[in-house]
Each structure stands twice: as C-alpha cells, then as structure tokens.
C-alpha cells in the first residue's frame, strides 16, 4: 500500500502497513509477523546473513546504489575495536520523503532491520541519526525503541540469543550535509557537520574512530523481508542489476503525488501517467528529475523510454539516486527551478572546500542575475565551466551535485535561458 494513495501495480513489501496505526505498536507489529526475521537471523551465522543479503542483490537506497551485502562484508572481522552501525535517517535531499514515512509507519521494521545488520556485522551499537525536522517520526521511532528494549528485543540479550544489541536514536539539528555519511559521523560525534576525507573509509575508521557501516533507512527496512524469504525471493522483482522493490517519492505536477512501492525497472512514463494519475489539467510534461535534486533533468522525450532501475535511468541520461521523482509540466520556469536548487546547495554547503563554498554561491548569483534579465550568453559558458571546476575537486559530492541540474538544464532547456537573456521573457510561467 502506497501512501497516501495506492495503486494496483504496487508491490507493497516495505510499505505494506503504511497508514495502519496498529503496525506502529509492538503488539500490532508482532501480530503482523514482526521480529520473525530477526529471530531467524539470530539463529543463522553472521556470514549466512551477509550471504543472504548478497544473494538478494539489494543495493543501497540512499542514492549511490552500492551493493549492501558487499558493504557489510567490508567490516573487519576481528573484534579488537567496537563496531558501529549507523542508520542514516537524515533524509534531506529535495524531493525525498520515503524514509520519513518508513519511520512514521513501520518503526519496528527499521529496528528489526538494524538489529539484523548489527548482528551480521558484529556491531555492538546502532545509532539512528534522524533529521532534526522529523518531529513526529522521531517520536514514533523513540517509542518503538523503548518498547523493543522493554520486550527484550534490544539490549544485553537480544531475543534471548545472548547477543548484545544496543540502539540509540540521535536527532540532528537540520543540516543537509549531515546526511553525507562522514558528515553524519562528525555530527554524531558532536562536531561541526563536516564531511571527512576518504580514505580512511568508515569501515576502517568511522564514527568515534571505530569501524562503522552506514546504511539508509530504506535499505535496512528491506533486510527483514529478505532474511525471512531468502535472496532469491527478492529477486523476483526488479531487474538483474537492480533487484527488488523501491519506494518512489513522486512530487510536483501529478494528480496523485506520494510514495509508491514499485519493482525497480518500472517505466517512468507509467509512473507519471498511470500510477500518479497524470498531470493536472491535461498540461504537457516538460521535465522530470528522477532521483532528487542532484541528478540531471530528463526532458519529456527522455521520460518516454526511461525505466526506473539504477542502470535504466543512467541509460536515459540521469541517475536513479534515491528515486525522488520531481515532475515538472509546461508551466514550470526551468531557470527558476535550477536557481532554487543551486541556492539550496549554496545554503547547505558546509564551507570546508573552496570550490563548493565559493562555487555554489557564485553559481547561484549568476543564475539569479540571469533570472532578473541581466544575464549574458557568456554567463552560460561560465556556468558550465564553473560547475566543471566544482566537480571531482572536493571532499564530498555536494559540490558535484550542482553540476547535473545546471549543465543538463543548459543542454536541454537552453531556449529558456536565452529567452531570459535576450528578451527578458520567462518561459513556462502561467
């Protein structure tokens, strides 16, 4: 069941109990078959758990799509140092709202997934780093964690297995950059939320200097069903390279925006026109951002053939990211939208690396000037060069994220820039 709307083409695995308040309670969750996967996992060896996840082909849902089982296997096996599992619930990519719903509706699914992952990696402590603005979600999750402790699911002797599994919910203070894994670690430790240089990678030196794995909420939520049903079962959905289901956050110009759980590889065209009920007032599609604000825009033609899998979106010329589909119809002023994205990055840059600190703000200023009708055609070349200079030169990829919207919009919607520059006309504004 999607939320707030649902559709028959959905495959509700994670979102099955969205909108069902009973599922939030421990008893309600158990009645729905909850914590069976954890029980099963605790009877397996950690290697078997990791192998099952590897078999499923589950890929990280935070945006990068890195194979989860492989990531887990990077954790050192020797236990001379404490191991940590961090759950990244600092969901802040513009257009993304899937983790919030998972936290709100199925907190026990997340706790279960975390506990399984912690067991598999020998992590003695789990931190769930929640976005500061997630007031309700944090409360729901906090209550669920308390219940799980009380019931002995978490704690010294998790489910009577003799394993110690501890979990702390940490609330951030509301900075986008704290969703970057090393920035999250810095923030968790009480420092400024500033990403760190890799190497060393978190699996070697992570939170508090200890081996650490960071997983997205949705990734960890996908783990219990996989453990319960096996890796092969999960592969019945999706494609060879992108198995399973994924929550798609659809926003913008569609009749029924919301979260939809669909098998990976689902056609973008159908998502917009069928699942989401098409574009309001019969207007024409102009562009789609398929994976959150850091990926290139797709033009209406590119959307026609795009399949929503990791590889399918790359083929169409963009990236799946965290599957935050922002739909823009013909009434959209692309230059303004790109300016808004750039100004978001300028606002959220941590300010460590020079290309990002200065570049994001500079790009925003140029876009604002173009929007005000005081741009020149050379500005477009400057924008492309600046975003090139900002790509691949910084500690994290926030700086790189400015380039896709700017460059793709200039490549695909140059007319709109030129209309502003030459005639002071905004296109698309109705």
């Amino acid at each position, binding site marked *: 069941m999607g939320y707030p709307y649902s559709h028959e083409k959905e495959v509700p695995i994670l979102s099955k109990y969205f909108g069902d308040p009973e599922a939030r309670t421990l008893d309600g969750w158990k009645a729905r078959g909850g914590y069976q996967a954890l029980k099963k996992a605790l009877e397996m060896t950690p290697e078997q758990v990791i192998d099952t996840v590897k078999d499923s082909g589950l890929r990280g849902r935070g945006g990068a799509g890195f194979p989860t089982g492989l990531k887990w296997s990077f954790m050192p096996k020797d236990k001379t140092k404490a191991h940590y599992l961090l759950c990244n619930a600092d969901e802040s990519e513009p257009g993304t709202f899937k983790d919030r719903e998972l936290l709100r509706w199925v907190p026990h699914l997340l706790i279960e997934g975390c506990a399984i992952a912690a067991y598999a990696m020998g992590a003695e402590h789990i931190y769930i780093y929640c976005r500061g603005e997630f007031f309700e979600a944090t409360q729901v999750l906090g209550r669920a964690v308390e219940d799980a402790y009380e019931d002995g699911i978490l704690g010294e002797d998790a489910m009577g297995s003799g394993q110690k599994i501890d979990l702390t919910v940490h609330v951030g203070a509301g900075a986008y950059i704290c969703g970057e894994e090393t920035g999250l670690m810095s923030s968790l430790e009480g420092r400024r939320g500033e990403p760190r240089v890799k190497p060393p990678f978190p699996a070697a030196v992570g939170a508090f200097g200890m081996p650490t794995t960071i997983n997205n909420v949705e990734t960890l939520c996908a783990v219990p069903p996989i453990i319960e049903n096996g890796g092969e079962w999960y592969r019945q959905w999706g494609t060879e390279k992108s198995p399973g289901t994924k929550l798609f956050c659809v926003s913008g110009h569609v009749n029924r925006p919301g979260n939809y759980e669909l098998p990976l590889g689902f056609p973008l065209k159908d998502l917009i026109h069928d699942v989401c009920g098409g574009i309001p007032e019969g207007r024409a599609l102009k562009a789609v951002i398929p994976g959150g604000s850091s990926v290139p825009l797709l033009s209406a033609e590119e959307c026609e053939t795009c399949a929503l899998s990791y590889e399918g979106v790359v083929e169409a010329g963009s990236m799946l990211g965290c599957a935050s589909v922002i739909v823009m119809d013909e009434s959209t002023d692309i230059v303004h939208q790109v300016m808004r994205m750039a100004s978001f990055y300028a606002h*959220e840059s*941590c*300010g460590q690396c*020079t*290309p990002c600190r200065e570049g994001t703000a*500079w790009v925003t200023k140029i876009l604002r000037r173009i929007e005000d009708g005081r741009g020149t055609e050379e500005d477009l070349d400057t924008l492309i060069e600046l975003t090139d*200079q900002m790509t691949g030169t910084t500690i994290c990829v926030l700086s790189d994220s400015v380039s896709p919207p700017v460059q793709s919009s200039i490549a695909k919607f140059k007319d709109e820039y030129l209309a502003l520059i030459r005639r002071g006309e905004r296109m698309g504004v109705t």
Partner: protein
Amino acid sequence: MADNGQSPDSVSLTIDGNEITVPQGTTLLQAAQGMGTEVPHYCYHPGLSSPAMCRLCLVEVEGAPKLLPSCTTTVAPDQVVHTSSEKAHRMRTGVLEFYLVNHPLDCPICDQSGECELQDYVFEEGREHGRGREPKRVFGRDDFGGDVLFYGDRCVMCTRCVRFLNEMENNPLLSVVERGNRSVIDTFFDSGLEDAEWAGNVVDICPVGALVSKDFLHKARAWDLDHTPSICHSCSQGCNIDLHTRDNLVHRMKPRHNHSVNGHWICDYGRGRYESLNRGDRLDAPVVRDGGHTTAMGWNEALEAVVDRLEGTDGGVKAVVSPSWSNEDLGGVANFVAALGGGDVFYRSAKGEEAPLPGFEGLARREDLAPNTRGAELLGFERVGDAAGSGGLERLADHKGVILVLGDSLPDAPEDFGAAAKAVIYLGAHTSAALGSASFSLPVTTFAEQEGTFTNHDGRVQRFWPALDAPGASRPAWLILGATVAALKGGDGPRSADQAFQLLGQRVAAYEGITYEDVNHSGAVINETVTVTGD
C-alpha cells in the same frame, strides 16, 4: 636518490618524472617538497593536522579516478605522480579563481602583501582576468583581542588558526561559524584571544592578510624588511626567531623553524618584547670618570685609562653580569676576572611562571626570563637576588677591589654602590642611574647588534647574527674585555666572535670542540648528559 633496494620502510615512486625513495608514510606533498617542488597549499601546515579542505594541493596520481590531495595522500610503491600536469594545473587555476570571488583584492593596503600566498599562487597559476561580475560578500573587520586583528574578507578559510588553538594551545578560542560562503572565523566570547598566551602564531600561519598583528599594522611593507636569524631573548627556552628590521629598528619578531626547540611557534610574551631592542637610552661613547670629572673619549684612550687603573690591583674582582649577554661576552668576563687574580661573578635573572604550549612537547615560556642563564651557570657564575631579578648586591657592597658590571643597569643598587671599590667598570648598553658614578662606562652592543651564542635551558648552544647597527662607539663586550686583558697580560684578545667562542671552549668543557659551523642555524648540544631541569 633513485634506489635499488626497497627496504620495507621506504617507498620508491615517481614524481614529475623523477624517481625518488622516501620513508613510508610520507605524504606526496612532503615527498615533492623533498625534491624541491612546492605544491601550492593553504590548509596544510607542517606543524598541524591536515584536513585537506583547501583543495589547492590536488595532484594527479596515475590510476586514480580523481585528483588526490597531496597533503593527506601517502606515498605508495611505484606511484606515478604529476604535480603540474595539465589536469592538476587547470584544477588549481579553477580553485584559485574561487578564492578570488569574494576576496577584496586590497593588496595595496594589506599588511600581508609581499608575503601573501594568495598573491603568489594567483600570480603563478591564476587566470589573467577575473570573470566575477557579482557583488562581493562583505564581512568587514573584527578585533579578535590580544594583538590579533581579523579581516574577514581576505580569509581563505584554511582554518589553520582554528587548528592551532585546538591542537597546539589546547584552547579552542576560535571557530568557524555559519556554513557555506557565509562561514567565517570567529571568537566565542568578547574576550577573544585576550587570554591566549600563544595567539600571535595565528598571524604567522595565516597564509593571507586575514589575521594581522595590530602592533605591526601599517608599519612597514614586507619587502622592505630585512630578516636576520636570531634567538628570542625573553626566556631560557631560546626560541629560534627572525628579527625583521628596517631603518635600523626591529619592527617585529617571527618564529624561525627549529624542530628541536620551538617548532614553528613562539609565545606572545617573547614576541612583544622586541621593542626593548629599539631603546633610545643607549650609551654610545666610553666615559671615564676621574675625581669629579667625566670625560668621553675614544676607545684607545679609554682602554689605556682602564689598564692604568687596573695595573697592580689586588683584592680580586667581583662582577655582576646580565644573563641576556652572549656566551662570548660572559666568557670575556670570566677571562677578565681570572686575569686579575680571580674573584666572584654573580648574575641575576627575573623569574616568571612556566607557560607551556601543550601541543608541542618541550616548548614553554621558561621560568628564567633571560636567554642565557644556562650559559652563566656553565661558567660557574653564581645566581643571586630574587625572582624579580633584583637584590643580592650586598655581596659586592663592601668590595675593595674591582667591581665589573656587564649589561645589568642595577636599578635597585644603593646610592653608594661601589663606593669602597678601587674601580667600578660598567660595560653597559643602556644608561644607568646607579652606575652614573662608575669609574668607567663602556658602551657595549646587545645581542641584536653582534654575533654570538646563547645556551638555552636544555643545553643547546644557539647562534644569532647582527640585525642592527651598533649605536655610536659601542662594541661587543668580549672585544673590549679581550683587549683589556691583552693589554694587561700581553698576547692577543679574540678578534671575532668565533675566536671568543673558541676561547670559551678552552675554559668550559661543555663547549670544547664545538665550532660555530656546528652550531650554525639549528644549534648544537653541549658536551654532557643533558638533564632538563625545567627552568
């Protein structure tokens, strides 16, 4: 250096076409530095941690998908590194352009101009013309307290200052506030750096004109200053410094790197005391007092008068010396005393509280607030007086022989000081009320005007060089004393500081065999098991 045997501790790699072998764990930046290639950098400082955030030191490493920060990337076997390939150069040009987006380009009124790394790097690799058409972000100026003034607009956000206070002083008084291009260095409290004891170093390590010294503000242009290697004279730590001079005045004191003594750092106390080297109340001609008459005269006549008076004296010598004078000068006193049949030499030194720099082991402002107490000790001189550096003069009060005073103007001396003495000889740099009635006032140079050595608390002999011209007829004390002894006993006195130091080696075993070449710029440890006494 290219090598055959790769030992497990060393790594061979190629940088810019040159094969080199360096110890394992060396960073690419250090390895390049070792072969004389300076990779531009801001946030890296050899004395601090490397956050790799300025993104200026990125270099191309074959096989790596992205450019890598050379300040944190360590060498790997058979790595092929290009520090100035087309890709690396283009990237640096781009990063430098970003640095100038909000920089005010106020070089004509900036104190850092001429020693500014932003100027240097942009001149080398920056774009010829800027593309910025947008209004610049403005922070303005902020008084950080102490001697530190902050020009926010010039800042390149390298955070060296923040890290210095965190890592070296263990006192996080500065921080980055805000984020993105609104981020700026700021203090937490109104007192700012007021209570810091080492904050002046943030001015030194600031690569641009963001942190400047209030004391030095608009006093001189960097390119007009002469730099002379010297030793700080404010305590017995013996920090290596450069004296920056112009028009025969010291304008500022900067630390000179010496890993065995002070690293890259000096304390604010020492830094602020350079002004004593510019004092105007100098003795500038030998003055001889005979009966009620004082007569200024040339050196030949003056020394003749001294020798006349001294010939045939007995009763020995009692001397008071200042431990701010060089080993050579103090050695001259020892020779003089011996030539006149022996006696006692005393020294007095003010004491303060020891103030360590926690992040750099072995560096502190020492208790003894004079540079050469150890040198005086090694000569067997006796410490008298109290922690204020006064008192103890009763040991000389009734002396009937010769009283010699070197450097110490005896502000606390009684009015009738030396009344019973056969002669009072004052070798001083500054006029002294107490010694106005001395039989001989002979002007000597300070350490800043002569060549010589100090021995620090740790037993390290360190050289300094003349930074200023000596006023009037003043001469080094070792020269005057040597000539006097020669006139009394025959032979030749030392003709150079080097010779004076060799003479010292004959007298004090700790210096035996040590030459000026050994000491040179980084010092030499004296011949004995050195015990750190902590003062």
